């Protein structure tokens, strides 16, 4: 059962050390706010991976292009849910759209999100699938036929000219899409990076660090989904595709690691008045989640594994296993990154004289179970999306000719 706030706070008070302002005992942004940037990161990363295919014409990754797009969409649909659940007054959340405060980074959330969802992702998926949907709907059962007809917005033109236009549109949207994906996750970083009162957050590097960790987590997610879904369809994993994705992952992790290291060195070298309390925070409160999980397990170990794969000839079966393990470790690491930023940034007092504590509930809206539900939900959405828009089935060319005749 959830306890009354003050009872919980009395318990937390026992764990606080040093002096903290009296209103600071409660950690306001809990696990749900950790989940939010984690989910949006996956969206941005998956989309950027998909974009590589279209913009840079990377043939190897072609087979996961549609899967990556659907992954991005399913995570994007669920991502605002944790924020909504976290609000004290969720019923007023629409006010953000009706009377936004334009100086607030959080108010811009709705606009960036709507832009990304409506203009980028949905349009790109629509143009990508349009021809196939029309052809699928020709010989399907009643329900699926109507679902597809509605999804195609009752368009029927599959002439060569029309499909060529679709292709052009996809390319154009991808080109707008990449900076939009950067914007989507950059702004999440900005929400934290612009809080000047908090030295753990306030950094111009924050949006960029968020962005690269997003790319890392998104690519790792698509690798994981691809490696689980392909065998379950009794298909062989395309090793050229997997190697290429792993290669991107490797470079993205290196950039992400360098950026975080740069941020760390910069803080240490500037060493402002907050440095003492931040060292205390890292050594006492975040040692396991930052030192062990984020850096050691989530970054250095997968990097090491991938270096080994690059240096030595590792046969395909072992390579698959190693990629799978690395991708899981990276997910763990990026989740820890979000945790360390969000919760870590609230564990020290703004008086810089003490540390507070965070205790996650098991049940309740802000609890562990709810978090697990929120993390599983996108996969359920993805399963439904895959059923409706199978990413690996293209309408056969013969059908196309038959219809256009």
């Amino acid at each position: 059962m959830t306890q009354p706030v003050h009872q919980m706070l009395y318990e937390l008070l026992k764990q606080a050390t040093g002096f903290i302002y009296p209103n600071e005992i409660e950690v306001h942004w809990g696990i749900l706010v950790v989940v939010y940037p984690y989910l949006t990161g996956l969206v941005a990363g998956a989309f950027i991976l998909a974009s590589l295919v279209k913009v840079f014409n990377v043939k190897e990754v072609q087979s996961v292009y549609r899967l990556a797009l659907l992954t991005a969409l399913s995570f994007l649909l669920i991502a605002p849910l944790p924020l909504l659940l976290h609000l004290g007054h969720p019923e007023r959340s629409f006010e953000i759209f009706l009377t936004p405060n334009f100086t607030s980074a959080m108010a811009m959330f709705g606009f960036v999100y709507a832009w990304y969802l409506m203009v980028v992702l949905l349009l790109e998926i629509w143009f990508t699938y349009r021809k196939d949907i029309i052809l699928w709907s020709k010989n399907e059962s009643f329900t699926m036929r109507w679902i597809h007809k509605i999804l195609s917005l009752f368009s029927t033109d599959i002439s060569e000219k029309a499909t060529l236009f679709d292709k052009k549109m996809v390319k154009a949207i991808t080109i707008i899409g990449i900076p939009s994906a950067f914007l989507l996750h950059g702004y999440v970083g900005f929400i934290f990076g612009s809080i000047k009162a908090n030295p753990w957050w306030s950094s111009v590097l924050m949006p960029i660090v968020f962005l690269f960790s997003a790319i890392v987590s998104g690519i790792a997610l698509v690798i994981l989904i691809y490696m689980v879904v392909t065998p379950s369809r009794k298909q062989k994993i395309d090793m050229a595709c997997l190697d290429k994705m792993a290669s991107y992952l490797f470079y993205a992790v290196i950039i992400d690691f360098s950026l975080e290291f740069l941020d760390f060195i910069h803080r240490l070298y500037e060493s402002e008045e907050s440095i003492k309390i931040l060292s205390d925070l890292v050594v006492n409160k975040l040692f396991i989640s930052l030192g062990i999980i984020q850096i050691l397990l989530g970054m250095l170990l997968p990097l090491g594994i991938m270096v080994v794969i690059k240096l030595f000839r590792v046969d395909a079966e072992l390579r698959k296993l190693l990629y799978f393990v690395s991708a899981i470790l990276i997910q763990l690491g990026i989740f820890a990154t979000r945790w360390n930023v969000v919760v870590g940034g609230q564990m020290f007092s703004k008086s810089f004289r003490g540390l507070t504590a965070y205790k996650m509930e098991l049940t309740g809206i802000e609890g562990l179970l709810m978090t697990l539900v929120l993390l599983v939900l996108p996969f359920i959405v993805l399963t439904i999306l895959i059923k409706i828009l199978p990413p690996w089935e293209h309408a056969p060319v013969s059908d196309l000719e038959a219809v256009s005749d």
Partner: protein
Amino acid sequence: MDRRKFGTKFFTLVASSTFIGAWLKKATAQSSGYDPSKHYYGMGIQINKCIGCGRCADACKDENNVPKEPFFFRTWVERYLIKKDGDVTVQNIDKRINNTSENVTEKDILRSFFVPKLCNQCDNPPCVQVCPVGATFKTEDGVIIVDEDRCIGCRYCIQACPYGARYLHPENQTADKCTFCYHRITKDLLPACVEVCPTQARIFGDLRSSTSPLGRFKRLNKLHVLKPFLNTEPKVSYSDLDGEVR
């Protein structure tokens, strides 16, 4: 009554009631005699006068329906002990949340003092900047307040406040903070904390007036604000402020 007549009557009624409503509102506003454009409020705190009795914090809780639990404060008092070896111990004078068990003997103390804290009513308030729906805003007379009917409880303002002056009201689920007792000052009364202070450590008034007690306080003291480097431009200023206070 035919439909046309009903329509005409209905619209006349709506129009006239709107007009009367607006007129009444204007009339009551005038009758209260309060004109926000004629004021710009601030507070002065004389550290040397504060005896740490905590009556200000109690009065504030009573006046403003602040939960009695010790995790919710619109104003509070900190006690600083600076030892001869340079160590600084800070405590809250509310015994329930004073978690430092350290015993400092009198001969070890170099100096000690009390510091009342409250919302600094910044001229450049980060909380107003970040509020996604504009629920927290600055009034014409310079007071930062929260519209609790609009606040969505996202707590972004709590994160943005460098002074720990905001909390989430556990019943309303909205952000709450010191309002300089806005309901009192617009009736020409002093904020509750100022009124009960036995030593007049807190001085409230109009920042533009040079003849008021606040004007005199500003004239006769060297003043400091908290965390000036953040450029929040607090309208609460302290005299005799120690460098250790943040």
